[in-house]
């Protein structure tokens, strides 16, 4: 008996070991791609295989990064953009979910609003930028509104669909206990839709970055979007690439935070 147990233990250990080895290989290849990309970029720029004026080079970007870090302008611009994106993201998701709840609450309202939702969803939201800027004055409010408006309607549609798809038998169970409509929402509809809400959060992270960066293009006074448009205008593409890389890093961090939230909320 104990011999057999040992054998199973051993096999299990081998299995775990093989998993570890596989993970190491994946990490190794990921590192190789990373290094290969940046080193070939650097070399081809130095050797003038690509136009260094347009494509810049990793070392130039790095130097500019240190430079901008020291004079504080990067931090200022980054914090502006981050604040706008986070607020736009939260606002968009929250308002979208609240709107979805209202639609679920009243089938009548949902029927009335249906064609308007379709139109608003089909419309390219960034085209509203100029109107928002004029209406809300150029600055934080209009850019945050851009970050939010780009995700509200799609959040509403996706979350409302998931509200409607909750198995009606769960509601039947609650109704036999005399539950009110609010209790049904709180006990069944909302928790059953958490996975959908989380996945819209993930989409919205990307969307609100789009909204905010476009907003900053248009307002053009501060933020990473402003750095990109400014670099473009003075033909300083090192600045453009620096902004892009910073955006990539922080968008990824936001995405990871949402995944962390997902693990906390969904206990499965």
């Amino acid at each position, binding site marked *: 008996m104990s011999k057999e147990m040992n054998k199973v233990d051993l096999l299990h250990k081998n299995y775990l070991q093989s998993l570890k080895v596989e993970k190491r290989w994946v990490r190794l290849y990921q590192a190789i791609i990373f290094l290969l990309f940046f080193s070939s970029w650097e070399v081809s720029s130095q050797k003038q295989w690509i136009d260094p004026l347009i494509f810049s080079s990793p070392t130039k970007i790095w130097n500019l990064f240190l430079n901008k870090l020291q004079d504080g302008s990067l931090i200022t611009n980054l914090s502006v953009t981050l604040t706008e994106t986070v607020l736009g993201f939260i606002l968009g998701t929250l308002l979208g979910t609240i709107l979805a709840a209202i639609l679920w609450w009243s089938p009548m309202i949902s029927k009335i609003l249906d064609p308007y939702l379709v139109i608003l969803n089909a419309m390219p939201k960034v085209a509203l930028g100029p109107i928002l800027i004029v209406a809300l004055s150029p600055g934080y409010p209009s850019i945050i509104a851009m970050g939010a408006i780009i995700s509200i309607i799609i959040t509403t549609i996706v979350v409302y669909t998931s509200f409607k798809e909750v198995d009606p038998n769960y509601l039947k169970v609650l*109704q036999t206990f005399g539950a009110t409509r609010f209790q049904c929402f709180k006990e069944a509809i909302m928790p059953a839709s958490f996975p959908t809400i989380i996945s819209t959060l993930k989409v919205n992270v990307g969307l609100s970055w789009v909204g905010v960066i476009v907003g900053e293009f248009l307002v053009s006074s501060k933020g990473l979007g402003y750095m990109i448009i400014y670099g473009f205008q003075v033909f300083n593409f090192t600045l453009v690439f620096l902004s892009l890389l910073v955006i990539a890093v922080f968008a990824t961090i936001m995405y990871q935070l949402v995944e962390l939230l997902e693990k906390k909320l969904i206990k499965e």
Partner: protein
Amino acid sequence: MSFLHVQGIHHTYFSKASATTALSDISLTVEEGEFVSILGPSGCGKTTLLSIISSLIKPSEGTVLLENKPISTSKNEIGYMLQQDYLFPWKTIEENILLGLKLSKQINDKTKSNALGLLKQIGLTGVEKQLPKQLSGGMRQRVALVRTLATEPKLLMLDEPFSSLDYQTKLKLEDLVSQILAEFGKTAILVTHDIGEAIAMSDRVFLFSSHPGRLHKTFHMPAELRRLTPFETRNHELFPSIFQMIWKELESLEQGNE
């Protein structure tokens, strides 16, 4: 006057294309502590009738009286058990069985310990903090029974509660449910399409015909069978003859329909 009085129920479902009469002129009574079954082919409006009795649906015509009063869901007079357990997967077993009490704000130390005691009585210990998916199908259906009984309903509706279980689990649960209900003196209505199950568990069997659902015939189970557990009933010498009798009625119904 009977415990439950169902009088002249008609019910019609409307859709754009058609109006379907699900139930036509259903009148029946159930005495306190009695176990009755509604047996019938699919499309005989069994589930509709349960929904009407538990006042989830308002019938097109007719009345339902429990102890001479109309039924209201908010007073937890009715317990309803569905085909599948429908335990909430994100709630622990404890949260699941206390759900009814929580919704009707009856939750206190006494009702809570009652519900947890019920869980023990039904043979589930140490599962309170587990999630439903950690339990087997039979265990989950038992938890669903505890959830239904926790609010101490006067009348229990069982809507094919055993149909999604494997045969062995089903036989065991039949015995358990029948024993628990007898202990608490609960009145119950079972909906099923399984003739054996109807005979084994009930005091009376209402046979329904379909399209539209009508009460076709009522069978009274003999006293000696009613004393036995469902499993013993299935092995009793009277069982096959009653089975045959109901089987023939069902057959004649089908022929009548064709």
